[in-house]
């Protein structure tokens, strides 16, 4: 079960809502921010805490792209591949990242430092092509910016 300190934070989230179940998404965000992924153990604990079946928590984790069941790299690139970014060269950006990190989308580098994911529109088409480096938006991507990002997190 969650620690007392943890539970205090979760209570704060849960108390905002009319129904405990409504707190599931913010609670999953909270847990993932702390633990870097959603483990089967966490799913069980959250289900108990909210009084819902575990399968219900699991299906929600699987449905939403922002939740992850496996550990990503310390630095996770979510590169946008939708129209506005594609028109401004996201395919080349993705190919360059693959080449630099020697991984394909969905993979993590062997040292655990980097991972690559392809995502649909991030809502920042004005600075396309873009990615999220962990939670930060990085726009106007080119080879130089990617080199810098990789050097920074290496």
């Amino acid at each position: 079960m969650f620690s007392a300190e943890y539970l205090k934070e979760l209570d704060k989230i849960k108390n905002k809502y009319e129904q405990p179940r409504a707190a599931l998404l913010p609670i999953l965000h909270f847990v993932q921010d702390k633990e870097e992924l959603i483990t089967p153990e966490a799913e069980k604990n959250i289900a108990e805490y909210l009084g819902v079946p575990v399968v219900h928590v699991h299906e929600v984790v699987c449905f939403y792209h922002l939740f992850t069941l496996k550990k990503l790299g310390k630095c996770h690139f979510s590169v946008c591949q939708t129209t506005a970014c594609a028109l401004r060269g996201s395919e080349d950006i993705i190919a360059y990242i693959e080449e630099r990190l020697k991984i394909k989308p969905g993979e993590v580098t062997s040292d655990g430092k980097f991972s690559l994911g392809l995502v649909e529109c991030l809502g920042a088409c004005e600075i396309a092509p873009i990615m999220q480096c962990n939670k930060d938006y990085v726009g106007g991507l080119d080879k130089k910016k990617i080199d810098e990002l990789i050097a920074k997190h290496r």
Partner: protein
Amino acid sequence: MEKIVTRHFDVPNSYLLETYLKDNGYAAARKAITQMTPALVIDEVKKSNLRGLGGAGFPTGTKWSFIPQTNPKPKYLVINGDEGEPGTFKDKYIFELDPHALLEGIIITCFAIGSHKAYIYIRGEYVKSLQRVQAAVDEAYKAGYLGKGIMGTGFDIDVVVHPGAGAYICGEETALLESLEGKKGFPRLKPPFPAVVGLFGCPTVINNVETISCVPPIINKGAEWYAKLGCEKNGGNRLFCVSGHVVKPGVYELPNGTTLREIIYDHAGGIPNGRKLKAVIPGGISAPLLTPDQIDVKMDFDSLKAIGSMAGSGGIIVMDDTTDMVWAAMVAARFFAHESCGQCSPCREGSGWVYRNVKRLYHGHAREHDLRNLPGIVNNIGGNTICAFGDAVSMSIGSYVTKFRSEFEAKLVKSEYAQPNH
């Protein structure tokens, strides 16, 4: 031209309560609660011709009037800030630069529909927006603009900021309600409409961020002033998001009814590198493509509908003459296949089928029947699903195939199966 929603964007620290108060902030909320009745507020918004700026263009005042006041259940206001329609990024600017305008709009709307609780659903990727809006909510509580008996009026209102988690479909209003209740974002069958059975089974109004941000100026300056700014049946200005092959991508606040040509060439600086326009998506990826001969269209809900497209979310994506339209169709089809929620078979299976089909065409692995079947597959998704996502697949992909048929046929000629040695 008078700016409405973006009027504070250039002011330093525009997102702070202190700054917002300097420009008559929260005066409209005070006016509504102390000098008007809910019915008067609704009437004023109806007269302003404000329409839902999330994409559907439904008259806002009319939507509010659907809330049954005799229903003893609590009523909710839900702000749809799941902004996920590709090519759309305007609500992010409101969240980050003028969150108090949104909060003031929320107070007025809640007063009008008899609600004491509002949820602001913000897409999970918008971390900065989530922080800014939460900070604004905290400030407003502290200063007595939210909470019990706000501004000494006796009107109670609570506002909760809720993070999404990366699912395009949650921008669909009933999927958003499911998501807010802690479930997978599966759209609900309508009726019952959310105005009757919405969040937690209670009467609910769901409005877009930009729509609600227009409400305080309407209450302050009057419906007539607002209605005059736009065009007939579509009052006020709109935030147009321009991206793709233009010199100056960005958000432009312009009157409804501005022509697409003006937006692309006068405001967004035209097409770079001396290239020519080939196609443009006028209202987010779901809107059918327009060709260069159609860009004198006025950008409002009714004019775009009349030429077979839609104003949608105001996301304008411009494609120059170097764009391979089969490739562009493949990119759009991949988006739909990726984001179909999987609830209805025609959309779940159809969107993937369409994507694989166009992908084969683009990569030169298609047979003749791949192109022949494409319109049939596309047309059998729309109209056969619970929500409008299926219609979007049909309308969007259908427009690439119809308007650029020759490019699809050319791919077939180059396909490996069309080669003599095959």
